[in-house]
């Protein structure tokens, strides 16, 4: 690191209760140093990261954009405190006329991290903890997006790794709060992580319009990089890769992902790197799939030390940060972390009941009736995405059983004009209306094969649409009526005043499995 520091600060310099220690990094807009608390009487941690931004030099006019970038970061930290976002403790302004280079600089006091993902990748390409880290990065994005913000500059250097090996998002200079479907960010970007629609995009006086889907593209690039040590788009230079992205977006080139990418991730990366932003997967749906992929990928080799034990849940291991494995990626709402891969890694775990894929959603969906484990998470989450009480995991599972006997590769071109495909026997022109997480029809009719990851959430959305359209006066189990409408339509079921005779068999099978899959004590 021989590059000059944007803001040189001498070691031992005091700002507020902090003493400046070693430099950590320098970015496009400022420099970060280690900070040690010297004052007492404060609840602040003993060590922090101090980010110095050169707001003091030059005239304010010349640095108008820097001021704006800092305001964005501070505003985000002020409004959002989420477990996967780095924390800010306070902001300070240097008042030191003796040192014109420092006087007036803004200092952000931030949670101190162990390192960044880019440093980890430089040391260890394709880190073993990659999938688990990706799950956490995705969680951070989902948290940001859910709160109505766009990060705008997701890349390895902006993902920080904490002492316990967990990942957090940082550097919110480009972050912007959504206004409807998009936000305005300053016109800065990192070429390798910029989605094609923002390459040479129009820029208004408020900056560049950006959507959460831009972060999703960046996540796809980052996932490909973490898992294969290469960029998804070909080219030896950022410029060549930018041109490849442009050619891909125009449809003149196909996406050729690295053959080293594991299958489970291939689909995820592909759904992040779609040509247009409208086809890109939403971050909430992305999170579920990333967690499933990270979880299934990790579970067979989960070290014994990570199995739950009766120990204090506060115990954390600091060993071997690079070989850390996420327990949370496997299960559900667990955030205990531990070092693994070294012999001393025994003191960890938690008393929280761990939920693995095999028992995911066990309170609503029986685990002993042959529902394939691989689909449990998709089934349960798809049902939970619907506000209608009748759309339950058991209903979706029963429907899939009756439709295809859980055959993900079902292909039945003979039915109707288009045929039916996949685990949910989707008719392509119907699936088009439900395939997208945001409830908008896809631009083109999707072509089979349809993966379970596409099919099952779409079933949840369609059932959720059907439920309020069925008359309340219809006789029989409402859930079976919903399934019957899936097979025919809510209009047909309303008109025939119940399950149409010709699909009686189907409805009976759904009713049978519905009962079988529902845990005792549940409706």
């Amino acid at each position, binding site marked *: 690191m021989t590059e000059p520091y944007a803001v040189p600060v001498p070691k031992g310099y005091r700002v507020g209760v902090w003493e400046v220690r070693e430099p950590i990094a320098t970015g496009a807009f400022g420099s970060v140093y280690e900070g040690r608390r010297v004052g007492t009487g404060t609840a602040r941690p003993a060590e922090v990261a101090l980010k110095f931004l050169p707001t003091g030099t030059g005239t304010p006019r010349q640095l108008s954009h820097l001021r704006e970038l800092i305001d964005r970061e501070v505003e985000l930290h002020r409004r959002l405190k989420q477990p996967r976002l780095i924390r800010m403790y306070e902001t300070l302004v240097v008042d030191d006329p003796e040192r014109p280079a420092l006087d007036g600089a803004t200092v952000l006091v931030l949670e101190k991290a162990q390192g960044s993902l880019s440093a980890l990748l430089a040391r260890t390409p394709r880190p073993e903890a990659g999938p688990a880290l990706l799950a956490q990065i995705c969680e951070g994005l989902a948290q940001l997006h859910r709160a109505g913000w766009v990060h705008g500059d997701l890349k390895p250097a902006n993902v920080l790794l904490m002492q316990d090996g967990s990942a957090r998002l940082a550097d919110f*200079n480009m972050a912007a709060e959504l206004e409807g479907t998009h936000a305005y960010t300053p*016109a800065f970007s990192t070429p*390798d992580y910029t989605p094609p629609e923002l390459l*040479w995009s129009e*820029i208004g*006086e408020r900056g560049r319009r950006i959507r959460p889907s831009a972060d999703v593209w960046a996540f796809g690039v980052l996932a490909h990089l973490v898992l294969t040590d290469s960029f998804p788009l070909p080219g030896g230079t*950022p*410029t060549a890769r930018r*041109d490849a992205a*442009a050619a891909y977006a125009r449809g003149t080139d196909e996406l050729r992902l690295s053959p080293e990418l594991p299958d489970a991730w291939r689909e995820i990366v592909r759904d992040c790197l779609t040509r247009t932003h409208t086809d890109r997967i939403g971050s909430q749906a992305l999170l579920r799939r990333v967690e499933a992929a990270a979880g299934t990928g990790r579970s067979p080799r989960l070290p014994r030390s990570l199995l739950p034990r009766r120990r204090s849940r506060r115990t954390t291991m600091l060993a071997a940060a690079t070989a850390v494995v996420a327990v949370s990626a496997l299960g559900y709402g667990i955030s205990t972390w531990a070092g693994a891969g070294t012999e001393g890694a025994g003191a960890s775990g938690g008393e929280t009941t761990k939920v693995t894929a095999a028992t995911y959603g066990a309170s609503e969906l029986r685990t002993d009736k042959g529902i394939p484990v691989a689909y449990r998470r998709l089934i349960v989450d798809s049902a939970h995405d619907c506000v209608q009480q009748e759309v339950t995991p058991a209903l979706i599972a029963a429907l899939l059983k009756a439709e295809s006997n859980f055959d993900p590769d079902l292909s039945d071109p003979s039915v109707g004009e288009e045929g039916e495909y996949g685990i949910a026997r989707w008719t392509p022109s119907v699936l088009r209306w439900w395939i997208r997480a945001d409830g908008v029809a896809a631009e083109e009719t999707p072509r089979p094969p349809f993966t379970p990851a596409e099919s099952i959430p779409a079933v949840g959305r369609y059932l959720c649409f059907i439920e309020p359209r069925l008359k309340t006066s219809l006789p029989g189990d409402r859930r079976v009526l919903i399934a019957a409408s899936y097979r025919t339509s809510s209009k047909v079921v309303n008109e025939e005043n119940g399950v149409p005779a010709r699909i009686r068999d189907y409805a009976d099978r759904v009713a049978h499995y519905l009962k079988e899959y529902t845990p005792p004590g549940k409706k």
Partner: protein
Amino acid sequence: MYSIIVVPPPTTEDETDRTQIRLAPGERLSFGRSASDNDLTIAHDGVSRRAGEITAQGAFWILSNLSREQTYVVENPEGAGEHIKVGPGRLDAPVPFEFSRIVLPAAGDLLAVEVWAPRHDYLSPDGGLDGATTAPAFSVDRTKRYFAVLAALCEPRLRGEPHAPLPTVDQVVDRLRPHWPAASRTSVQWNIDYLAVKLRLKPGPETADTGPRLNGKKESLVSLALRFDLVREDDLIVLRGPARPVAPAPGRAAR
């Protein structure tokens, strides 16, 4: 996502709003006399039936000369005579200029096809070449005339009056004439229009009507330039001369 703009020769004398053909990287535009074989027809007897092809190649473009015996000259209009020659039959010759004029010798007339490459990248004052660095979305060449025009537009506000009225086009001409004797209303206006393309100014809602809306465009350019520090106070040196090219102002590298 276009990176190259082709402006065909004017078809009638008075046409002010010349067509612009936008090419994205990888897109190809063939030109020549024949209306059936070409994307761009140049109806002049002296031009070959299939005269040539322009292909956008990332931020630059390549020219193929498909004629049998004519050499095409590609001039850099701001380059003080700088030009390249592309001989007959030469395929895919790279052209490095941001502004180019392809001169087609056509039976005594010289027809000029203009090609702009507004996406050229320049080293930013504080960034590297690296694809992982957060970089501004604009890159401007501080030695070009458009930069002098932008600086002249921004000058009053950079000199300390944040709400100063913008100079009129005529005032910009007067300001620039000492170092750019050929400056005229038209050339300054041309540079303003080019800046709007180059900085990818979002066309405002007012572009629908064709009335005098130049002020809106200037206003947007200046606020964009100031907001993103495309022009800073020490850049105003380009207005003082000496004549271009101007070395980067001292102190910039240190920032």
